[in-house]
């Protein structure tokens, strides 16, 4: 990202330069490197007169431009006036005669100082700076039409009046010529000196707001707050470079304080931001001490306290202080970065070192130690620093996206694996369950065949073998076997919790036998609640119990009538089978006794209870079934 930005910038500059060379090829413009210079003590920051009024005692001397005018005063608040005169040669002016005079422009690269400026063409006023002597638009290059009005001619000389305070003042070299030849110079310089700080400060301010909103929801990461604060400070600082000569909304001294302190705070905030990158290779107290010092400096420099200190002195001292603390910070971070592995930490510390160098350059520029035509470089350095932070943020963002994607993919894979496992184990379980059900069913039928059909057939076989059975007996045994088999088949029919249906099926089967035995069956079945636990296994047990009871009555009770009735309460269903036969006989008889034991066993197996009760004229058998499975 940084590379592509640099390439774009380079391309832009190269194109501008090529354009410039194209213009230079047939130039009639003049670079004014020399001027006539004179000084007069005294003067004021008041508005200049419309006609040039030169003091009578001026001593002119030729100087090369740019040139610094030093203060000649004696009292602190007095003003010194410097005069610069550019004489335009007749030859040059003759060249321009072919063009319209309105085309000819004067471009002053820079003037600076706690000062006011007035520009005269011959003796008429062309321009005078506005604003105060401090905020006078010093960073804006000057672009003036030399003959702006109809019929006006290009002046023979241009005179500049610079009224400056004790800090001194300076005027750069100038260009004069047709607009199409020299305008690009003015445009390029304006772009570099004022426009770039202007739009970058707003761009970073936008990013700063974004970072602030991020910080609101992620308080654990103060780096976003530091970035937001830095963007704010940078924006304040850049007002210094692009504001121009228009009046400032707040008090000038406070504005000055804010733009000055913002540089120091940028250093401190940069240190805070860089701190986590160095991963504890810098002692926390270093950062804390830097912050503390900056707080103290900010307090000392508060405008109300400045009435007691000469302005230029305090400003210079402040810048010096900032640079010194910057040097300390940079040396610490550089050392830490080189000990550590972080690429970002290295970039950042190198960039910080660059900032300090640029800061020193700007301080030298302020104090006339460098050609005043040089632009202030700190804003550009700050751009680099911001870009590094953006690169870090960009990398973090992309990395986070990547990680989240990877995490999702991993999660999906794990989920899929788990699903497969579950499906597999479910399959296994259901296979086991199926196996178990089949096994149980087989067990049940085996048991039934063994106890009922099998043993009946075997005993019948033995008796036939020993000739103990006549044909009727054999028929009887076989009929009983078939009845048994039918009950087994019936137990396989799903009865869906309806025990009455089961009893109905039993009656349907037993009816012919009862009829044959001459027994009347009275059916008093009442609707009973559904029994949710009624499985084929339970059904068979119930059928066999009822069968056993009926068989006992048919065989041993000598009864004429059987009554089957059902009833229920909240917890149980009761099935009563009552006969009007001989009492007690059923329990004493050996085969019946075995039958009773069978009934008890089966009842126990399905969680039911049985009881026999002697009633007037007969017996009453009761099967007690729980409504809820126990």
């Amino acid at each position, binding site marked *: 990202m940084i590379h592509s930005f640099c390439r774009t910038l380079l391309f832009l500059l190269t194109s501008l330069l090529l354009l410039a060379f194209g213009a230079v090829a047939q130039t009639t413009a003049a670079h004014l490197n020399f001027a006539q210079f004179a000084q007069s003590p005294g003067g004021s920051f008041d508005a200049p007169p419309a006609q040039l009024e030169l003091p009578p005692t001026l001593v002119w001397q030729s100087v090369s431009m740019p040139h610094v005018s030093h203060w000649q005063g004696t009292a602190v608040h007095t003003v010194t006036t410097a005069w610069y005169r550019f004489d335009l040669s007749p030859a040059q002016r003759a060249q321009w005669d072919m063009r319209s005079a309105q085309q000819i422009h004067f471009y002053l690269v820079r003037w600076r100082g706690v000062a006011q400026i007035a520009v005269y063409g011959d003796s008429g006023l062309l321009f005078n700076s506005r604003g105060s002597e401090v905020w006078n638009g010093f960073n804006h290059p000057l672009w003036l039409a030399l003959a702006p009005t109809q019929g006006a001619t290009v002046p023979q000389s241009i005179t500049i009046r610079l009224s400056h305070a004790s800090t001194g003042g300076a005027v750069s070299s100038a260009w004069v010529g047709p607009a199409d030849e020299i305008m690009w110079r003015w445009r390029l310089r304006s772009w570099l000196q004022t426009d770039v700080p202007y739009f970058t400060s707003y761009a970073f301010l936008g990013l700063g707001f974004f970072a602030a909103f991020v910080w609101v929801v992620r308080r654990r990461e103060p780096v976003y707050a530091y970035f937001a604060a830095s963007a704010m400070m940078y924006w304040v600082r850049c007002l210094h470079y692009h504001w121009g000569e228009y009046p400032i909304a707040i008090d000038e001294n406070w504005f000055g304080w804010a733009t000055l302190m913002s540089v120091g705070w940028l250093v401190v905030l940069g240190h805070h931001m860089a701190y986590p990158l160095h991963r504890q290779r810098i002692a926390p107290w270093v950062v804390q001490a830097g912050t503390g010092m900056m707080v103290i400096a900010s307090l000392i420099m508060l405008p109300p306290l400045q009435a007691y200190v000469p302005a230029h002195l305090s400003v210079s001292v402040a810048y010096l202080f900032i640079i010194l603390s910057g040097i300390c910070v940079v040396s610490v971070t550089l050392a830490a970065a080189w000990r550590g592995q972080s690429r970002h930490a290295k970039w950042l510390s190198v960039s910080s070192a660059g900032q300090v160098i640029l800061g020193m350059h700007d301080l030298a520029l302020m104090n006339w130690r460098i050609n005043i035509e040089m632009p202030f470089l700190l804003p550009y350095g700050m751009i680099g620093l911001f870009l590094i932070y953006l690169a870090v943020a960009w990398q973090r963002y992309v990395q986070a996206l990547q990680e989240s994607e990877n995490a999702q993919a991993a999660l999906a894979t794990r989920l899929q694996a788990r699903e497969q496992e579950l499906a597999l184990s479910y399959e296994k379980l259901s296979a086991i369950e199926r196996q178990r059900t089949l096994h149980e069913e087989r067990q049940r039928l085996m048991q039934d065949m063994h106890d009922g059909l099998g043993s009946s057939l075997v005993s019948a076989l033995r008796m036939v073998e020993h000739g103990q059975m006549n044909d009727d007996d054999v028929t009887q045994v076989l009929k009983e076997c078939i009845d048994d088999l*039918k009950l087994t088949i*019936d137990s396989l*029919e799903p009865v869906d919790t309806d025990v009455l*249906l089961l*009893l109905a099926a039993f*009656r*349907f089967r037993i009816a012919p036998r009862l009829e044959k035995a001459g027994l009347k069956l009275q*059916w008093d*079945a009442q*609707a009973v609640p559904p029994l949710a636990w009624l499985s084929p296994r339970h059904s068979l047990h119930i059928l066999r119990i009822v069968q056993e009871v009926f068989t006992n009555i048919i065989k041993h009770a000598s009864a004429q009538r059987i009554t089957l009735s059902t009833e229920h309460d909240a917890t149980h269903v009761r099935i009563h089978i009552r006969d009007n036969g001989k009492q007690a006989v059923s329990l004493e008889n050996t085969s019946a006794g075995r039958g009773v034991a069978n009934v008890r066993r089966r009842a126990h197996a399905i969680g039911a209870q049985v009881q026999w009760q002697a009633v007037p004229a007969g017996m009453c058998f009761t099967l007690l079934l729980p409504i809820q499975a126990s």
Partner: protein
Amino acid sequence: MSTSVLTESNSPVVIRVALVEDDPNFRDTLQCALSGVADMALVATASTRADGLNLLKQSAAHVLICDLGLPDGSGIDVIAAAQNAWPNCAIMVATMFGDEAHVVKSIEAGAAGYLLKDSTSSDLIDEIRSLHAGGSPISPFVARQVLRRFRRRDGVEQTQLLEREPVPNAAPIFVPTSALHSPLSVREHQTLDYITKGFTMDEIAHLQGVSPHTVKNFVRRIYAKLEVNSKTEAIFEARQRGLLM
């Protein structure tokens, strides 16, 4: 139809019985039982499905007894074919256990009753005679299954009803939905219900104040409705699928 059958049964006309059965023992048993009575005669027998279908080309019998498990296919096919070929013939399925699955399937194909193979000769004769007289036997399990079939049909018809436009100004009639939409009459429904609770035909007749024979006639009608019902359901299902496709 039942009137004409009744006249026939009272007249000296012989009940012509046809049998499709591969078990020679049962053939013998039946032959033996029928030869013992004057009003019945076994007029045709077949032991395979193919023979059974051929048998239907002859003149119609009054009663056809058909086994399901034939060596070359299912007796259900013979029952269905007989329903078309001999529309006035009463069809019985011969079964070992009278289990619900076999019986209901046969009734849906057009059978009017079933014959338990282990019945005594006199029971066999009684059952055939009862069937020929327009009655049908039923067991609790078969009754329960028949009830369930009609209830399922009800569900389908009710959803269809909901799609229709409501009739404006229609006086509200409080009739149980089952009675309104089920093709079973209230009486028939009640009969089936009693059977599932274990009551015999005689007891139900007494409870309903009709003759036992009338109850058996109810059952015959129920079987006829079940047959129609199963065919409607098949058509309905086919239409459903057609709509879905």
